[in-house]
């Protein structure tokens, strides 16, 4: 009897969270879904039902698919060096002989505290043409005879976007990977050492397989976060050639908040959700598959 009474109170305690969750998360999700089938005038608040027109427009828009492609390329340019650097530094920081680990981790994490707008502006200045810092270095070292116009070369513009995002997030990933490394029981390494395993073998056959769950988490969250990139490309090279730095979310932002096409913007939000869901599932599948394969091979060996 007392327990049942207590349970009722428990519902009351969790009510504030669920009330705000319903009002600020669930309701907007359903409302934006409804909005995606309408044309909406934000000043008169009038809506007009247009059926699937916004979705048809989205799926037939070359510019939407271009933005999907640009997002993926920028994400790839960022995630590959990001995880590589994070993994290498985490492994180094995990070694006993490294001094000042906490300070170094804090320094690496620092770019993550800088706002994306600031990073966008910073990299814009670094890579500006013709007198940006990078161009000055390249020409001073005679690596290039003329300054490089990063903005006007689609691949370079996307590469700069990737570098900026990598710079912001590699320290963030170090935190996760380091946590994964710390969780590995030292007895396993000691046993391997006694069996004569060298450093590379310990890393390849113990460390990497054991931090696989962390890597899957980092990979999936980076897909979800990385495909939503917006602020840095927005500030970096506005109107880059061939709209090369226009990402999916930036395309949605321009449609909804610059041209006030909120119905279309809502449809784009669902399109982006689909793209992210597909790539998240794909990355989960691939990383799990690779892990299982390695595990099987290990067992067989």
């Amino acid at each position, binding site marked *: 009897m007392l327990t049942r009474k207590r349970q009722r109170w428990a519902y009351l305690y969790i009510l504030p969270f669920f009330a705000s969750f319903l009002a600020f998360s669930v309701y907007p999700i359903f409302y934006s879904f409804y909005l995606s089938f309408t044309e909406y005038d934000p*000043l008169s608040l009038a809506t007009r039902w247009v059926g699937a027109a916004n979705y048809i*427009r989205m799926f037939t*828009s070359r510019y939407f698919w271009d933005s999907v492609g640009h997002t993926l390329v920028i994400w790839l340019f960022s995630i590959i060096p990001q995880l590589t650097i994070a993994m290498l530094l985490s492994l180094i920081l995990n070694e006993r002989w490294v001094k000042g680990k906490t300070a170094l981790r804090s320094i690496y994490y620092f770019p993550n505290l800088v706002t994306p707008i600031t990073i966008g502006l910073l990299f814009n200045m670094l890579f500006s043409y013709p007198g940006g810092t990078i161009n000055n270095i390249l020409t001073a070292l005679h690596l290039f005879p003329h300054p490089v116009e990063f903005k006007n070369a689609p691949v370079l513009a996307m590469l700069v976007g990737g570098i900026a995002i990598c710079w912001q997030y590699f320290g963030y990933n170090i935190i996760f990977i380091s946590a994964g490394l710390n969780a590995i029981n030292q007895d396993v390494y000691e046993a391997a050492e006694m069996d004569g395993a060298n450093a590379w073998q310990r890393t390849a056959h113990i460390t990497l397989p054991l931090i696989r769950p962390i890597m899957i988490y980092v990979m999936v969250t980076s897909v979800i976060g990385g495909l939503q990139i917006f602020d840095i490309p927005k500030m970096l090279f506005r109107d880059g050639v061939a709209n090369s730095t226009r990402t999916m979310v930036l395309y949605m932002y321009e449609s909804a908040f610059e041209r006030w096409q909120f119905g279309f913007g809502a449809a784009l939000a669902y399109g982006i959700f689909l793209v992210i869901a597909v790539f998240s599932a794909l990355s989960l599948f691939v990383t799990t598959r690779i892990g299982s394969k390695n595990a099987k091979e290990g067992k067989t060996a």
Partner: protein
Amino acid sequence: MKKWISLLLCVCMTLALTSAMAMGYETDESLAGEFTWWTYFDQAPFLKDEFNKKYPNVTVHLEVFGGEDYQTKIMSTLPSGQGVPDLFDLEEGYVYKFIESPLLENLESLGVRAFTSDYYPWALAMATDKQGNIKGVCDNVSPVAFWYLRDAMAEWLGTSDDAEITAKLSDWDAILELSKDITARSNGEVHLLSNMSDLVKVEGYSLTPFVRDGVFSVEPGWVDLLDTMRSFWDAGVLADLGGWSGEWATAWNDGTLLIRVMPSWDFFTNWDQNSGNVGVAAPFKGSYEGGTYRAVYANSEKKDLCLKFIEFLTTVPYQAENLAVNNQMPANMKVLEAMGPDYSNEKFGGQNILQTYDKVCQSILDIVPDIYTRDCQNLFGKHANQGIKDGLANDQIIKNFQDEVRDKYPELKGL
């Protein structure tokens, strides 16, 4: 007899205006109250302070919001009816989206036409709805001019005289020839113009807008402009510095870029370095860029105070002060009359910039812009720049441009 009456009236008006300016504002303590004003404009506190010199008992709750999201804030606040400011500023880039809304007070019905009868017509047209009602009022206009440094012009064009410089920059052919000459003489170190977008800035409001009454079309003048842009690019005479970039501003302030095509509100001049050395020339086509319009919330209970505020910002003494302090070109043509032909601005080497800007303003054609006008111009400039650099033919450039317009505005016909 008529002549004498006209002359007498002119003398009286000039005397009245001159005395008004000389005396500052006549304080009116009888008007009291408070209202809220939202803006994105960093010079708004100046207007507020000037207003309070005349009306010390009116409290203006001014809130300045920076960034691009200001328009989103206004857009979402207005229909909610909650916490809506009595008065708010709208920028030229997006004022057209708001103008037809009944949430903006019809200032025409409040008698604003009487205060603005001496405004440049195109400046009012920007904030006039389809029924011809004024919905917003500005205190300055933004005519586009050729900005130059006098010493740099003396070195490379052989003159620092404003009239002579204007004469030398009489059309694109003349400018191209000068560009070739300067680039050759300086071994490519000095350039007359920066980039191809400068040409669009000058021509933008002299060509039929791409969209009229919801129908898209490209008049031959735009294609001719492509050819002109290409001739500049092919000649290799452009500095090719991104407009409004740090390098662009530095090059001009250092005298290696001779002309910037900029509106009167320019904030890229290093006045510490170049005060007294700056000059402006009226381009051969009239154009403008930017503008801040003050609108009143239709359900505001402080409309009378807002109206007084709007009346104040249209007056000659205030706009003259705004010119003197902020270099803002007055929207009221009476300021020009009041200041007279002897007006000179020390920052501009004693030049009568009012006359120069007035020449530009008078030559701006009566084109009433809409939500598509500026955006289509910008898109055209973007595709023209890139297409010419990539060696595309005009047809392909126009096609690329049309494709993007169609993607952005599928409701347009003619695409």
